[in-house]
């Protein structure tokens, strides 16, 4: 099992001929992911180190039997690329592209949901199921296979925590970077729900940050719907109020949305929250080892 990507993933990379698409698409293949096609309009017939390029996602689906798309195209083409992938019939779209306008995401999100397609991102690092498939930009070598499900709003912070877990001898079932934008295709709750249903996941770790109320909602979901233990980390305790810390999502104004408020909401339902990435890894390790 694992969630979202696994041995059955047949990946088409939209934007495989671009420099980032090529670099990471090939890294995904080297990891063991079945990368069956690339799509760049006007470049059909070419290949990237043996991966055939098609003009449309529909061709990648009919000829390459792709079922999952990885979107690497520039921001102004990204919404169109996701719509195209959904219309072509893939069941999962993972969008790495950042700076997709939020208004574009409003209708895109509604459309994707209505079609029953799983969208992760935009502005996310992707999904990695160690030992099975890596789709996106997560450095696969950092993570080991195991039973901890990791879900995060932040890319590099996910790597940090995965790294700390690996140092503690622990591994992951799947690592999902949901992205830090105001509107993303999959929320903490969407992913936690899958971890709860996934037989390979025994523990879930949630990595949040300041801004919005996704962590608070996740806390409520955990209390009401999850039987598996959940641990958490929240970034931004030292962020001054009213300043934007990079992510469009990471804005705090007044008292709501602060790291402290999130920590309190999570702890109120019995979720242990680490103060540093090392501490959350230590908490998980202690639990996993039955201490």
């Amino acid at each position: 099992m694992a969630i979202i990507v696994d041995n059955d993933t047949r990946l088409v990379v939209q934007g495989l001929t671009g420099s980032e698409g090529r670099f990471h698409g090939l890294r995904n293949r080297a990891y063991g992911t079945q990368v069956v096609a690339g799509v760049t309009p006007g470049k059909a017939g070419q290949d990237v180190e043996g991966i055939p390029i098609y003009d449309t996602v529909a061709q990648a689906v009919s000829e390459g039997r792709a079922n999952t798309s990885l979107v690497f195209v520039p921001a102004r083409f990204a919404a169109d690329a996701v719509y195209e992938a959904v219309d072509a019939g893939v069941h999962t779209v993972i969008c790495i592209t950042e700076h997709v306008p939020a208004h574009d995401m409003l209708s895109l999100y509604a459309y994707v949901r209505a079609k029953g397609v799983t969208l992760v991102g935009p502005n996310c690092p992707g999904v990695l199921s160690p030992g099975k498939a890596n789709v996106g930009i997560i450095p696969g070598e950092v993570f080991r296979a195991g039973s901890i499900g990791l879900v995060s709003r932040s890319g590099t912070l996910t790597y940090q925590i995965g790294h700390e877990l690996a140092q503690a001898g622990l591994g992951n079932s799947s690592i999902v970077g949901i992205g830090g934008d105001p509107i993303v295709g999959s929320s903490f709750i969407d992913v936690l729900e899958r971890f709860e249903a996934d037989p390979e996941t025994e523990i879930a770790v949630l990595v949040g940050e300041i801004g919005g109320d996704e962590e608070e909602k996740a806390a409520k979901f955990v209390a009401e719907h999850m039987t598996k233990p959940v641990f958490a980390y929240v970034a931004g305790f030292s962020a001054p109020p009213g300043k934007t810390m990079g992510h469009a999502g990471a804005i705090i104004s007044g008292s709501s949305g602060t790291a402290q408020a999130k920590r309190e909401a999570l702890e109120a339902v019995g979720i242990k929250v680490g103060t540093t990435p090392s501490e959350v890894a230590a908490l998980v390790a202690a639990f996993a080892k039955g201490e």
Partner: protein
Amino acid sequence: MDLLEYQGKQLFGAAGIPVSDGRVCTTAAEARAAADEVGYPVVVKAQVLTGGRGKAGGVKLAADADETERIAEGILGLDINGHVVRTLWVEHASDIEREYYLSVTFDRGAKKPLLMFTTEGGVEIETVAEENPDALVRLHVDPLEGFQPHHARALVYGAGLTDPSEQKQVSAIVEKLYRCFEQNDAMLAEINPLIVTPDGLVKALDAKVTIDDSALGRHPELAELRDEGAADPLETLARSKGVTYVKLDGTVGIVGNGAGLSMSTVDVVVVAGGSPANFCDLGGGASADSVVNALEVITADPQVGSILFNIFGGITRGDEVARGILAALERIDITVPIVVRLDGTHAEEGRALLAEAAPANLYVEPTMLDAARRAVELAR
């Protein structure tokens, strides 16, 4: 990007929402001339991106030319929550019979635009939401449906507006505000207060508009409105170099890649007993040049006693970061020690490059916590 009141009002005016006649001024003499044009009495309003202008003395009425000039002189240069007033908006003062509130914003949780309207305007909307939630009508717009006139009717009837003329005017403003929100890629378009004058006219007395930074590419005219003068000079320098930088007050300069890891680094420096000088995010796929740019900005802060690089490569490659650090050491005069922690994509290559060059005053640490501790110690 937050717009100043007058910039928001210009968008509102262009969208057909009634606003008072006004002028932008940067000197007291300009304010006097503007007041003569729009007609007395006038209201002189500080243009700053912070709340509490009124309480801080940044909004005042003037009855004649001399008073306008005197008030403008007093407000210009005023420090409101750390924002120095450089721009004024002078408009014809409105008589107010009633104050309402109207906004459209992004509801991130629902992933839909949210319209909010109440006849209990003129106060913080959070207060109304808390103390009198029934008075605040909240209505989502389904993005697949788009805005429809029934949305406006639901707000107007829901809030108990009974005067037919007001119903008609407010409904029209709701639709125009929604179009303005949509067409300008706004994250927030708020009118507080939306006033009714004694002769029954409804108009926007204030404007709060936030534009989605990710959409500025398709709104070059809005991108130009960014108020460079109001920001911290280091933040302005950072923006001109494409570096995401937020000035803090401490001594440990921080560079991370990705907002989450960079924020976490700020937190860990505090846990290690230090005080962060800044938040700086190289973003995804940083080149050596962007590392040089970041170092230029951070070293321009005289409070910085050490610099901590915390890089976990994904789309960013460790060797690029290492090349950037080495290039910066050659190009800029950096006297403070640099502590580097590299992991992830091409981290080994990066560490090898640093070890080979072995510049003085550069320390490579194996973990985030070790690196933070070292940087805190070196900043002392």
